[in-house]
């Protein structure tokens, strides 16, 4: 191996540290500032643990005061080959899915189960706005309600609701 092109030892050491951090622990980024810069610190953990995935459900109340059935907020999108080059709607859906995961993590991080404590958070506010948009898409909607349900096709025992919101007027 030509000496001039050999991997610098410092780079090997740095990469070993990065790999160790990514392999052996999920780094919880302290502080909001670092959280906003987390794209600079990838964990490279893709599709590893299915566990129980948080899913956003919504239901709408019509002018007569009758609630419709609960339905999943984020509906599946049609697949198109052109999406390879331009896929804004699907990427937005993926972003919204990440938002629901963020809110679920905030709820899980509470020392005592008290979903009311997250209602002031940015994630809750954005999720409420997302639920509102999804409820309005379903037609007659004077008010809406949303919930986050943990679901897993791998575990028996059904889904668990970790958050059920109050009813919000549109």
């Amino acid at each position, binding site marked *: *191996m*030509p000496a*001039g*092109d050999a*991997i*610098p030892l410092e*780079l090997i050491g*740095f*990469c070993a540290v*990065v*790999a160790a951090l*990514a*392999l052996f622990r999920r780094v919880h980024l302290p502080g*909001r*500032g670092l*959280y*906003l*810069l*987390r*794209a*600079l610190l*990838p964990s*490279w*953990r*893709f*599709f*590893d*643990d*299915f566990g129980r995935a948080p*899913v956003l459900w919504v239901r709408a109340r019509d002018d007569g005061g009758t609630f419709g059935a609960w339905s999943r907020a984020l509906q*599946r*999108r*049609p*697949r198109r080959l052109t*999406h*390879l*080059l*331009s*896929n*804004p709607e*699907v*990427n*937005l*859906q*993926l*972003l919204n*899915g*990440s938002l629901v995961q*963020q809110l679920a993590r905030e709820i899980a991080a509470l020392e005592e189960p008290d979903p009311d404590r997250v209602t002031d958070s*940015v*994630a809750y*506010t*954005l999720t409420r*706005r*997302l639920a*509102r*948009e999804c409820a309005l898409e379903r037609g007659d909607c004077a008010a809406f309600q949303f919930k986050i349900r943990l679901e*897993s*096709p*791998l575990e028996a025992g059904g889904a668990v609701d970790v958050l059920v919101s109050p009813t919000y007027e549109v």
Partner: protein
Amino acid sequence: MGAETALEWVSRLIGVALVLSSIEHLRLSRATSFTGVWAWRIVRRDLEGLPGLFRTAGDRLLGRFGLRWLLYARLLVAGWLIVVPAPVPLAVGFLTTLLLAVRFRGAFNGGSDSMTLIVLGSAFVASLGEPDSTLMKIGLWYLGVQVVASYFIAGVAKIGHRSWRTGRALSAFLTIAVYEPPGWAQRLLSGRFAGPLACWAVLGFELGFPLAMFHPVACLSLIGVAVPFHLANFGLFGLNRFVFAWAAAYPALYWCAVAG
């Protein structure tokens, strides 16, 4: 392939990735499904507690009008990179991509944002050196190592979970995919033999990816598997940006295999 040629290809390919993602963002910025939810006046609350300079910069750059100009600048430097790779568009591309990630609370598209930043940052560092200089080689080596790490670490993380070892993971992930999975794919991956075979194929590919560093033939072979792997992820899960972000890093990986 020399270091300079590898860097040139990395720069042009990441320019393509930036063009496509910038156009996506510009289309999104007009959609009510986006503006009605991800309003800056809500997201900016994330900057509370940070020094006032950050909040002011955020309001200027990431508000409704600032964001559009940010995207136009990103599109401009992306085109510049495709035509004439250079340090300035790499740096501006890095900064605009990072600002976009902040706009969406840390990441818009997760892994592809991270790889895009790594490609841009590594290429920028490499571009500051003379052709075939140590600095250029450091930038390319770092990028090559990160590409290998992205597959290998993903594989290590997966194999620790029983659902992957028993072959149930892929069919489970399909149930939450943004696209309706093709019936044949769901049936196949739920099968007694095909499901575990597919899971172990993914594990074998990801865990074996470090071999790409050691020989050009191995590198090209693994890239030859990686491209359809990413295309399959796009077809099933809608992850189109991953295709282009990772493709931009492959010239650096190949250079590492040749140089090493």
